[in-house]
């Protein structure tokens, strides 16, 4: 005896299949799942509410920090408006051999931003800086900004750094670690000098730094 076409699929029932089935309906007891498990979970939830405030200090993970900086740079691009440009790419330059280049290159291969390709260029020395929309200045090359900062800003380059106090010295965006989280400082004066407009949402999330304070 062969019923067919149940549930959109053919089934064939013969003796071997029936061996596993009792004749006549039967039911297991109600209530799926072990009751002790559920009670335990309820107690655990209450306990968690008490323990959740306990927190140990965390050591900074440098590799995660690098990836985060790259992700921040990628995200920040979405909030910045440059003067009209016919370029198809958004170029992120890195001054110095900084490890942030690695995740930035990975991002440029798999993501586009604002409908444009992202291009990553590393400039080993300040003298070799080429055209770019963003320049990440690694710590060893901060001093070069003294001579090149004005020139870069006039080219509408968004300067980004990760050295303490850099926003107060004229860099538009500077990464800092505050309470185990990566934050970014923003200098409105630096943005204005570079002729760049930044979205209000990003400014609301930033730490605004007044350049006068650092002098």
């Amino acid at each position, binding site marked *: *005896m*062969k*019923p067919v*076409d149940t*549930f*959109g*699929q053919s*089934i*064939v*029932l013969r003796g*071997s*299949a*029936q*061996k596993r*089935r*009792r*004749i*006549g309906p*039967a*039911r*297991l007891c*109600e209530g*799926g*799942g*072990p009751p002790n*498990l*559920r009670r*335990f*979970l*309820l107690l655990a*939830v209450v306990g*968690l509410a008490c*323990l*959740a405030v*306990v*927190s*140990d200090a*965390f*050591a*900074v*993970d440098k590799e*995660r920090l690098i*990836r*985060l900086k*790259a*992700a*921040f740079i990628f*995200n920040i691009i*979405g909030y910045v408006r440059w003067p009209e440009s016919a370029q198809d790419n958004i170029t992120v330059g890195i001054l110095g051999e900084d490890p942030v280049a690695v995740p930035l290159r990975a991002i440029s291969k798999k993501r586009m*931003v*604002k*409908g444009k390709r992202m291009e990553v260029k590393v400039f080993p020395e300040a003298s070799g800086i080429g055209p770019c929309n963003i320049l990440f200045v690694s710590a060893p090359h901060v001093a070069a900004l003294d001579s090149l900062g004005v020139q870069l800003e006039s080219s509408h380059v968004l300067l980004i750094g990760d050295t303490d106090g850099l926003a107060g010295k004229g860099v538009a965006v500077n990464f800092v*670690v505050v*309470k*185990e*989280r*990566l934050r970014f400082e923003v200098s409105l004066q630096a943005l204005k000098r570079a002729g760049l407009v930044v*979205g209000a949402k*990003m400014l609301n*999330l930033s730490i605004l730094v007044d350049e006068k304070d650092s002098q």
Partner: protein
Amino acid sequence: MGRWKFAAVIALVFMSLGLTQTHGDELDAFLDMSLTDLLNVPVVTASKRLQTLMEAPSAISIISRDDILQSSANTIPELLQYVVGMDGYTKTHTDQDVAARGLAYDETPKMLILVNSQPINVVVYGGVQWPTLPLAKQDIDRIEVVRGPSSAMYGADAQAGVVNIITLPAFERKSSASISYGERGTQTYQIGFAHPLNEDFAVAIRGRFTRTEKKGDAETPAAIQAAPNYGIKDWADIYAMTYRLDYKRGDTEFNSEGGISSDEEGYNASAGDRSIDLSSKRTIYLNNRAKFPVGRGEVGIRLGVRDLWQENKRWSNGGYVFKYELRKSQGIDVDLQYTLSPLANQNIIFGGNASRFVGSRDIANTPPYIYDESDNLWSIYAQDQVAFADRRILLTLSGRYDKWSSLDGEFTPRATLNLDLHKKKANLRLMAGSSFRRPSFDESHYFVRFPGGWLKGSQIDATTEVGTLVPGEKPDPEKLTAYEVGLRLHPDARTYVDFEVFQNTIKRNLGLIVYHNAPDELNIGITNIGDRIKLSGVEIELKHDLSKDTRAFLNYTYQRGKIKDASSIEEKWLGAPQAKLSGGISYAGTITADARFRYVGGVTYPEVDFEPVDDYWTVDLAVSKFSGEYLHAKLSATNALDKARYEYPIYTQIRRKLSVDLRYLF
């Protein structure tokens, strides 16, 4: 539901990175975050790029975009067959199934399949019409596979696990045209356009025609009569169109995605049956999502729709027999979710869902039988992850309550403890939880007469051939309780190893019961039967980067089970391969090459009284290269050595499929 259960759900007010922790690569996870999210990421001591996998509360595997594009797989089930712990089969070219941990071969599949969190399981019976999904491989970013009970976050149908297909945003897609041609008339033609309208808004559309194999010459009644020994003829012509819109400004995102497919297919069985089915199907899915910051967290809203219509016509021994129809299988889902990290060591998700399901079948009985049913669902869920001791201990608790208008409510909890054993290079995971599967409309309301008998759904009244009334009754959801132990090792940046041991117990199993059986009479039905199914197994997965261009993987799955009925008679569970070994190597340099093998052993299907499927192994190969910047060529061979096999008895025999694919980007 008792008050204590409701209180437990409300008490679960913390959010987890559970969803985002499913990203395989930490950088990818960061890129998917908003600026607000990034500000909440703790800069803590962590291992390298697989940190999120190491701490994931579930057994999870990620199929990356590279895997999807480089492998020779033509369909998503073919990709999933290489994932550790996953079983799958091809019955016909449009009838494929996948499930996790020994639950693949039952009447109703037990995996929840999502496209960007939108369920696409067919409402009426719970399976997925995989090849007719209007989804192109080029538009998929990654596939996340969670093995194990997942109802605590995803509700019903996530009994054995979840597959979430994440598609590329329109900003990331490229315009392209492609042609693929292969053995036995396999063809695919597609064209897609993707265009960012401005900095914040992008659109993409794609149209595709796929022929799985050349139409058999026995698809007409006359040919059936004339062909004495025709074997399996199995073909499908599928037309599909998809679209995607994306809007993103700052932390606010909106996207709308959808597709429609129309399918004509034919199947002729041999083995003495001499029957032929011709089917027409139409599949639609829509998914709209928005995400925006609120307070210290983020709100996500989703509205999705799925719809399938199907009509089958059958001929047998040259004569037209009948037509039957899946008239309606529709679901509409609304989700609302809030995510936040209130403390440095804590992440919380909580949310709610409302759904409506409609199903209708016209079954070829005499007289015809039609059912037309609907049901509503509402649910609330929460997940909390808390870290202790410098993130060496992670505790994740989740729970969900689902209530249908036609059935009792169901509460499912899950708890996971992750312990860092050695400087983020070894992570021990202990999990206990439950999940469930709601009886489908078919399981409750189906009724078909055949010569000398009938098969009925659980809620149907019927009388046996000897005059006994079998009353209908409301079925209970099928409940699964699981315990898992996992050990993940990440000894260096290039190596990842995962050992998993699991035990699943299913109670209130929905299955077939025989009410009356005589030589020419058979009355059977679906109900909660007195069976307890116990499944256990081991999964081992190894991934290693041999060089910056070359990756390799190897995985082994062993599973076994027992089924015990109410009278304590115990038998071996016949429902999944006992062992599976898979491996592969991929090279992505000037050319891209992908080679994989898979061995599957010890498969028997409980509902089919034929010999077990023979143990089989297969080798799948693909080579591709860019010529210039815009032209891409690929040569693929699935079952390259042409070792013919059945993955499901008497249906389609899987042979080699050699194909060439040319794609032009513009």
